[in-house]
């Protein structure tokens, strides 16, 4: 069991555990500080093929192709990446591909960089307009339950599910130099 202090930093482990439980076999991502622990867990997992993308919309195609081949795939991205995917999301809707997207939020709680704000404040609306059901996570102890429910809905119901991991959860980007 995790102590409360552990949960503050180990919530990515809960996401990875749900990937294992539901049988996610491919994970597409654009490198991101908020997802760094989860990316490392996926890269170290022999059951998961990790696919580093040049842009998030590539991941939408990856999810569709994986599903055609009988595999479940998840996407990890920052809120800015959601904007890069909008047209490609039609593929998921048109064909009914189940998909779980873990979005680390920028441009909200404690954001240092104003250039992140315009996309950050519209991210959830954009996802809904594109057909996703969205769930926000603001505290580390809620990650397990919400991501678990999201994985079930995505892959048992062929729905498009986005989990928004708030900047308050992740912590604002640290500027050390």
């Amino acid at each position, binding site marked *: 069991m995790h102590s409360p202090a552990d949960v503050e930093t180990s919530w990515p482990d809960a996401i990875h555990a749900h990937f294992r439980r539901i049988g996610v076999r491919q994970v597409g991502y654009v490198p991101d500080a908020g997802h760094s622990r989860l990316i490392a867990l996926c890269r170290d997992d022999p059951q998961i093929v990790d696919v580093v*993308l*040049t842009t998030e919309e590539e991941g*939408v*195609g990856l999810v569709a*192709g994986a*599903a055609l081949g009988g*595999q479940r795939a998840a996407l990890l991205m920052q809120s800015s990446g959601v904007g890069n995917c909008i047209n490609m999301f039609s*593929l998921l809707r*048109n064909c*009914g591909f189940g998909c779980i997207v873990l979005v680390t939020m920028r441009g909200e709680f404690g954001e240092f960089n104003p250039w992140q704000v315009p996309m950050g404040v519209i991210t959830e609306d954009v996802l809904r307009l594109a057909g996703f059901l969205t769930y926000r996570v603001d505290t580390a102890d809620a990650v397990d339950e919400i991501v678990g429910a999201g994985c079930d809905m995505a892959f048992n119901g062929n729905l498009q599910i986005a989990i928004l991991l708030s900047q308050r959860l992740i912590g604002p980007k640290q500027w050390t130099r």
Partner: protein
Amino acid sequence: MLDRRDFVQQLLADRGDLLVVPGLGSATYDVAAAGDHPLNFYLWGAMGGTAMIALGLALARPDRRVVALPGDGDMLMGLGSLATIGVKQPKNLVVVVLDNAHYGETGMQPSHTEAGIDFAALALACRFRQARSVTRIEETAEVRKLLHSGEGPILINAKIKLDDVPRVLPLRDGHAIKERFIAALNAL
């Protein structure tokens, strides 16, 4: 320069269990004209995504051969996917670009390849194992062999003529195309 319909017809002759992902527009019509098949995942949108869909499929089914058939405009929109494929090095994936150097669906405006942008050179720079352009129909048999047994990732840039050929429209319902594909793949 290749006649697009002759080239795709010969390329997909006796295709066996080949998994085929044609890009939106003329590529989808060419593949349909070569003969409808449940292992065709026809695209009617998702421009720029054809090669990535094929990558997801190739990674999920390393026991099967996968071919992506984007047009030049589709491939240009997803150029980064060449780098992504280069990282993963799927042995069972071949990308055949149907390159007429024009945007056929939108009024035949010239594409970047008309100015000499070279997919084969880009693919080699992205660590594809083989990449080259073909211009003569006599080369099709060799390309077909690569589809079935070449060690990927491979990119073939098929230089096709600027013909305006009749549209051959396959299934358009995305759910139906997907379900039919998955059922056929599961039945192999």
